[in-house]
């Protein structure tokens, strides 16, 4: 366990045509209140835009939100776009209206964790913290 010295940087993005950003903004604020630096991209972004932004901003973790049912296509696409840009080490977390049977598929496609409606904010923040720590440890080993 390394000591956390500087704030974790995370990106919260909304891929696809879904404009419901209440959840994304709620998580962004909750993370801010836990001392995270949160880059918010706004709604209706492509997977490529989100990945390019994450690389430029050198974030520790990417968090995605989707409520429109397109998560099976869009979430793994962000993972792939990150890989293409040399960011395979950046964990991607996802949340939204996601059926139980899709969760394993997404985890299999390289998502780090998936949250469904009703998940307590504290659980989500813990996952973000762990993923950030994992990313920093990975950096330290390089």
């Amino acid at each position, binding site marked *: 366990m390394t000591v956390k010295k500087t704030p974790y940087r995370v990106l919260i993005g909304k891929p696809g045509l879904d404009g419901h950003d209440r959840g994304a903004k709620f998580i962004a604020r909750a993370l*801010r209140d836990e001392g995270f630096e949160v880059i918010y991209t706004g709604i209706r972004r492509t997977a490529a835009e989100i990945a390019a932004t994450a690389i430029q*901003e050198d974030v520790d973790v990417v968090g995605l939100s989707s409520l429109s049912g397109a998560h099976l296509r869009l979430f793994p696409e962000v993972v792939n776009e990150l890989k293409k840009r040399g960011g395979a080490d950046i964990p991607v977390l996802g949340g939204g209206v996601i059926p139980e049977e899709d969760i394993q598929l997404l985890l299999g496609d390289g998502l780090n964790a998936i949250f469904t409606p009703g998940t307590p904010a504290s659980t989500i923040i813990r996952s973000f913290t762990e993923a950030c720590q994992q990313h920093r440890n990975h950096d330290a080993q390089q």
Partner: protein
Amino acid sequence: MTPNSKTLLAGLKNHDPRAIGRAISAVENNGDVAADLLAALDQDLINKVLVLGITGPPGAGKSTLTSSLITTLRRQNKRVGIIAVDPSSPISGGAILGDRIRMMDHALDSDVVVRSMATRGRLGGLCASAGAAVRIMAAAGCETIIIETVGVGQSEMDIIRLADITLMVLAPGFGDDIQAMKAGLLEVADFLVVNKSDLPGAEALCMDMEHIFSSKQEENGIARVLQTVASEDKGINELLAGVDTFAHYLETSGIKEKRRGKALDAETLDWIIEMLRPCFVQAMKDDPCNKDPRIRAKKLINTILASQDSFNNNFKKRHREYK
């Protein structure tokens, strides 16, 4: 030099986005490679770059103007860097960095390098590492760098030091705030941009501002008060033309060099104080008392300087953080 810093420096030369992001993080977090990197940046590129500061009250349109400037600069085939600063929470230390929302049109353009930075407790509208971030972007081939400050009030004037040219953005309808600013930022800004100039009150605001800027305008005949509607890209060409003329004037008159020299001195002083801070914080803890702070400060400095050995040891121990 570590292999890691060599890789990053090579990445900067090749305009690799990942390397640019990592390099800025390294200086922002005082990482191991920060000193290596900063010592090896291409000084010629740093001298050549034009740094524009964009400042103004919240809601005047700084981010929108920045995005519009990017569009126009890209049409001129210039590689652009943007540093967007937003405030950190004084309570949690966290931050929401939301300036990118208005710049996402440029997300896939590899010649637009954007970095959002949080103030991390620093007042004055900037963050401590903004200067280093400017130099890294310059070394990574950016020709114009735009720094967007946090929304400012009267005295957040750090940007004046870091930017070659400072644009103050205002919009009609801010009323008394503008009166209040007359003695602060307005005096030191190079250009005044009246944004949202399609709104009522823009003409009156322009007249007020031209009055304030009249002496500057007489200095070299360059119009210093300009109108824009950033959301529609209106007035941006004229603004950039004015900025270019002024940049040429600064360069040929030697003012740019002088401004940069002063800025580096000021930044150095900031770092001296920053690096000494932990040592003095410790000294205060070791010797608690309720004397008048000014008297106590003097006494602490004297005690520390007198016991040089303990100062050196203490300082060296704490200084490692900034290697």
